[in-house]
């Protein structure tokens, strides 16, 4: 929370110093502020505007992926507003994980439960909007960080840390993925195909999905 808040104030500074279209600046910073006001009215009745603001806030303070997303949705929508049950939350998370693409489409599922198709669209736009905004602001800074030897060295450290985080997540995924001989063979075989034949990853994943569906059908 603190980290997110600190970054938002930092970004507010960047917005003000930015000499781009002032209308856009006002719009963006305005929505950022009102998002912070949203969670205070706990137990509020459902509306599409409130849905938008809650997911906008979650998108703006989401740091560090999966577990944080679950915790944020639980504290805001289950405990805070009481819009969805714990069971619905767990089902929504499961759907976000089982589908390809970003996990944050969990918001799409919850949006649909609460407000039908308009709810799904609004929740999706709201949770991803801050990501577009933050990248638009920070993207041009990355080459500038590289120009400074000091900032460049810091970025090197951040990059190594980012890879370390991925390595840790990979180990957790490995333990849930390689559960028997067949999955071990599949992992080893695909690593071999990737390195030696540079097989396109898309085909490997599609093949894996077909094997997964096939094995489920055989077992049932």
């Amino acid at each position, binding site marked *: 929370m*603190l*980290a997110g808040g*600190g*970054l938002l104030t930092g970004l507010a500074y960047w917005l003000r110093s930015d000499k781009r279209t002032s209308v856009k600046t006002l719009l963006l910073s305005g929505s950022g502020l009102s998002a912070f006001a949203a969670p205070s009215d706990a137990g509020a009745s459902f509306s599409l505007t409130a849905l938008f603001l809650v997911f906008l806030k979650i998108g*703006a303070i989401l740091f*560090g*992926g*999966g577990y944080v997303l679950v915790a944020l949705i639980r504290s805001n929508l289950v405990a805070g507003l009481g819009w969805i049950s714990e069971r619905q939350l767990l*089902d929504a998370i499961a*759907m976000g994980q089982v*589908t*390809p*693409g970003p996990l944050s*489409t969990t918001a*799409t599922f919850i949006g649909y*439960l609460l407000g039908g198709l308009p709810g*799904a669209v609004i929740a*999706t736009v709201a949770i991803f909007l801050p*990501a*577009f905004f933050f*990248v*638009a602001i920070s*993207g*041009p800074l990355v*080459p500038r*960080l*590289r*120009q*400074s*030897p*000091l*900032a460049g*060295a*810091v970025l*090197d*450290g*951040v*990059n*190594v*840390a*980012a*890879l370390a985080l*991925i390595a840790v997540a*990979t180990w957790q*995924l*490995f333990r*849930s*993925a390689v*559960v028997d001989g067949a999955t071990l063979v*599949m992992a080893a075989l*695909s*690593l071999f195909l990737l*390195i030696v034949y540079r097989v396109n990853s898309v085909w490997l*994943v599609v093949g*894996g999905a*077909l094997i*997964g*569906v096939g*094995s*489920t059908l055989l077992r049932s």
Partner: protein
Amino acid sequence: MDERVAATKYSDASAPRHTSLLELARLFLKLGMVAFGGPPAHIAMMEDEVVSRRGWLTREQFLDFLGATNLIPGPNSTEMAIHVGRVRAGWTGLLVAGASFILPSAVMVTALAWAYVRFGSLPQVAGILYGVKPIVIALIVQAVFKLAKTAVKSTSIAHRGRVCGAGDGAWHGSTCRACRWWFVDWAGLLAAL
């Protein structure tokens, strides 16, 4: 001189439009449809497509943007897609790449949510993950290995060039905005633990 080198390495600021919006949309719609397994898997598949196969970014650039996504809030892999779109095709590329990566997942989840509301239970789709996860492990291991080689190389060059590594950056924390971000990030990480 330094600035010139950096400018040629990061040519995005001077000439942003290298890739057509159609190409961006095609790649990220495809990735959005097959990128199972969470952010590490998405990063691995993007590295394969964007760096190794298409050469849209150098591995160093890719790594820098990956680091940068860890310093801002929001889903990291989606932000990588948005970064790639911005570098390759400017503001419209930013929107197209990000939306293309999100759209397939959003459509699938909406369909599943419709079934959930209509039938009151979750469809049996977990079997897909049994087959996909081992593949994804191989993808990630390969991508992390490639990126780690680049990361370690650039770090040791920085050390040789001047005595200023990530740890030394701590001493300049108050003077450098990036250093403060670094602390914010680690503070956030510790808080999450």
